[in-house]
C-alpha cells in the first residue's frame, strides 16, 4: 500500500471525501473489519455429525480448520432439528476443545494420594492383565445349585448411552465372550 493509499484510506479523509461526512459508517470501517470473514467460510472442510447430548439427535455441522474443530452449528438439512440447537448442542465446540479435557492416561496406585501420567499402551496392558487375573480367579463353571453358568462376576461395566452402536456392540460381544455378564448402562438408571 503506497503512501497515497494510506492517506486515502484514513478514516478522516474518507469522511471528508465520501458519503459519510459524520464518520459513523463507511468512513469509520477499519481495514480489519472490512476483511472479516466468518470461520465457517475459511474452514478446510465441513463434516456432518450428530449432537452428543440428548436423544433428539439434532444434526450438526462440524467445521474443521487446520485439523481443529473451529465451529459446530446446527445442520439445516436435518429433518429432526432443521438446523437448530439447544444451549448444550451450541456448547459442543467448547466440549470438544475444552482446555480442561484430559489427553493423557492418569493412574492412581492403590492408597496413593495423587494421579500420575502413564503411557496409553502400558495402561491398556495393565488393564488386560487385571481382567485376566480376575476372570481366571473368579471363574464359575456352575452356580451353587450345580447349574451351568460359565461366567465371571469379577468385573462389571457401566456406560454406553453416550457411545456409538458400534462401540456398544464390541463391548457386549467381548464381555459375553469373556463370560462377564455385569454390563450395564444409563438405560437402567
Amino acid at each position, binding site marked *: 500500500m503506497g*503512501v*497515497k493509499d494510506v*492517506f486515502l484510506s484514513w*478514516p*478522516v479523509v474518507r469522511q*471528508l471525501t*465520501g*458519503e*459519510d*461526512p*459524520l*464518520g*459513523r*459508517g*463507511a*468512513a*469509520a*470501517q*477499519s481495514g*480489519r*473489519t472490512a476483511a*472479516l*470473514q*466468518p470461520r*465457517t*467460510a475459511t474452514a478446510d472442510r465441513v463434516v456432518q455429525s450428530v449432537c452428543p447430548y440428548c436423544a433428539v439427535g439434532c444434526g450438526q455441522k462440524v467445521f474443521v480448520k487446520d485439523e481443529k474443530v473451529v*465451529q*459446530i*452449528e*446446527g445442520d439445516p438439512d436435518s429433518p429432526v432439528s432443521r*438446523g*437448530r*440447537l*439447544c*444451549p*448444550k*448442542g*451450541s*456448547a459442543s*465446540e*467448547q466440549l470438544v476443545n475444552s482446555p480442561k479435557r484430559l489427553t493423557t492416561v492418569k493412574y492412581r496406585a492403590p492408597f496413593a494420594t495423587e494421579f500420575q501420567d502413564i503411557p496409553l499402551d502400558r495402561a491398556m496392558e495393565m488393564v488386560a492383565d487385571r481382567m485376566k487375573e480376575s476372570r481366571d480367579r473368579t471363574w464359575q463353571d456352575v452356580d451353587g445349585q450345580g447349574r451351568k453358568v460359565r461366567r465371571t462376576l469379577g468385573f462389571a461395566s457401566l456406560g454406553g448411552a453416550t457411545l456409538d452402536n458400534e462401540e456398544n456392540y464390541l463391548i457386549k460381544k467381548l464381555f459375553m465372550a469373556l463370560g462377564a455378564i455385569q454390563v450395564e448402562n444409563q438405560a437402567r438408571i
Partner: protein
Amino acid sequence: MTNSFYGPLADPAGDAGWVDGDHQPRKGFFTDTSVCIGCKACEVACKEWNAVPDDGMNWLGSSYDNSGALGASTWRHVKFIEQPKPLGAQQAGMEGTAAGVSVTDVLNRAADSALAGDRSTLGSTNRVDLGMPTTTLPGQVDGAQRTEFRWLMESDVCKHCTHAACLDVCPTGSLFRTEFGTVVVQDDICNGCGYCVPACPFGVIDRRVGEKGVTKNEGIAQKCTLCYDRIGDGLQPACATACPTQSIQYGDVDELRERAQKRVDALHAAGVHDARLYGENGHDGVGGLGAFFLLLDEPEVYGLPPDPVVTTRDLPEMWRKAALAAVAMLAGAVAVFGAGERR
C-alpha cells in the same frame, strides 16, 4: 442532517455513507417472546461464535436467570419473569390449590430484611426511600391467594438503534454503522474510553472486565455485532441460527416488522391481549430499533425503558458550535500531509 440524530430515518446505512453495491437492506432481529422457552441457546451460541468469555459463576436467585444483564461478556440475555397474571387463556394450574402466601411477599420480606441490615452478606445499608419503583410487579398484591400465573421469558440483545448514541459519542470511530444498518464495535480501534457506556439508553454496551493480557479484549467496549462476519457471508447470526423455537428471527427489518404485526394480530385473536411490539416504531425516541421485540407486558416488566430517547438527540446543536474549531484543525492536517506527499 437532523434525521441523522433524531426522528424517523428510513435508511440508516445510507445515511452513514454506504452507497451503491456496498449498501445492503437493513438487517435486524425480531424477538418474539411469546414463543421463547428460555432455553438460552442464544446465549451460548452467541458466546461460542464470538468467543465471548464466561461472565462469572454467580447464582442470582432470579428465577432461572443467572446472567443478570447484558454486558461486555453477555450479548444475549434471557430474562425470566414470574408473574401472578394470566397468559391469554392459559390455565396455569394454580386454581383451587392449597395456596396462601405469594412469592413476592417472601421476596419483599427478604429484600426488606436485607435492606434493613439483617443480612450480613449484603451489608448494613439502611433503607432510604429514593422514590424508585417497588419490587412488587404491576397488579400484584402481597399475600394474595394464588390464582393466576405466567412465566415470561425474553431474550434481550443490543437494539441496533436507528439513532445509536453509543456510536455518535464514540471518539475513535470504533463504533460504526455497517452496510446492514447495524451498529458494531471494532475492537482493533476501540481505546476503552467508555463514552459509549453511559450513552446507551438501554444499558447494553459495556467495557469488558477481566485480566489484562489474559481476557480477550479486556477493557474494550463490547456488545452484540449482529454477527457482522456471519451476515456478511449470507449466514444468520449465531443466536437466530440456534434458536429452537424461532423466537429469535433474523432478516430484513421491513419484512420483520410486517411479520411481527401479523404475529401480534394473531395473538390478539387468540386472546393474548397483552401482546404488543416494542421498538418497531420509527417515530420513537431512538428512531426505531433494528432489533425489536414482541412483549407480553409493559416494557418495564422486562426491564426495558418505556420511552427510550437517544442521548445524543441535541448533538447537532452542540456540533454547530464546535464546527469552526474542527475546520481549522482539518486545514492543518491537510497542510501537513500535502507537504509530506510532495517530498
